[in-house]
């Protein structure tokens, strides 16, 4: 996609509903609601308190809120995540701080 990436960087605070048709990198603070059609990356210095919907989510910083990411969630070792996650694929690295419930949309075999 030739769409230029957006980023929230440095000492900028966003309060409200943010929707993005492309990819988004958050280096700053965001509070409210977040809806990203592409990949969402929260870097080590990113701090997000928002219910988040994205195609794919990578967190290295702080995230608090409900997460829904259809194509996958990656929680890096530096991350601190609090809240329920709904996804089809998840990686939580060793050292990451996570508290919440994970709901993976998979059909379990009947005898499980």
């Amino acid at each position, binding site marked *: 996609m030739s*769409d*230029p*990436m*957006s*980023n*929230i*960087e*440095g*000492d*900028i*605070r*966003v*309060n*409200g*509903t*943010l*929707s*993005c*048709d*492309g990819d*988004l990198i958050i*280096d*700053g603070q965001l509070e*409210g609601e977040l809806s990203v*059609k*592409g990949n969402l990356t929260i870097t080590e210095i990113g701090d997000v308190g928002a219910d988040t919907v994205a195609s794919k989510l990578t967190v290295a910083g702080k995230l608090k809120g409900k997460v829904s990411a259809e194509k996958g969630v990656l929680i890096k070792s530096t991350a601190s995540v609090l809240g329920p996650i709904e996804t089809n694929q998840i990686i939580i690295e060793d050292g990451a701080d996570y508290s919440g419930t994970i709901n993976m949309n998979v059909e379990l075999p009947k005898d499980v």
Partner: protein
Amino acid sequence: MPKTTIGKSLFLDGELSGIDGLVIEGKINGRIEVGGAISVEKGSVVKADIKANNVKISGEVKGNITSTGNVHYMEDCSVTGDTTTSRILIEDGATIKGSVHIDI
């Protein structure tokens, strides 16, 4: 200096604040207050009161603009609202509807 970019694909309904600079290419409804420079690029639509240091507009703004530095209205810009600043530059072709106060 870190610079936040609100890209073309981004839409924000709410508040933006901070001490750093900001480049807007997308759409914003709400309020913007930053300590650094703000640049509203061509194609962007901002419906918000803007408070910033230096302000450069080449897109569309509906709202009052208050600058602690200088204001630069580029040739393709469209501004509806009052402007308060200490220095202003308005290029030929800029569309402005509103009052301009220059406080020295």
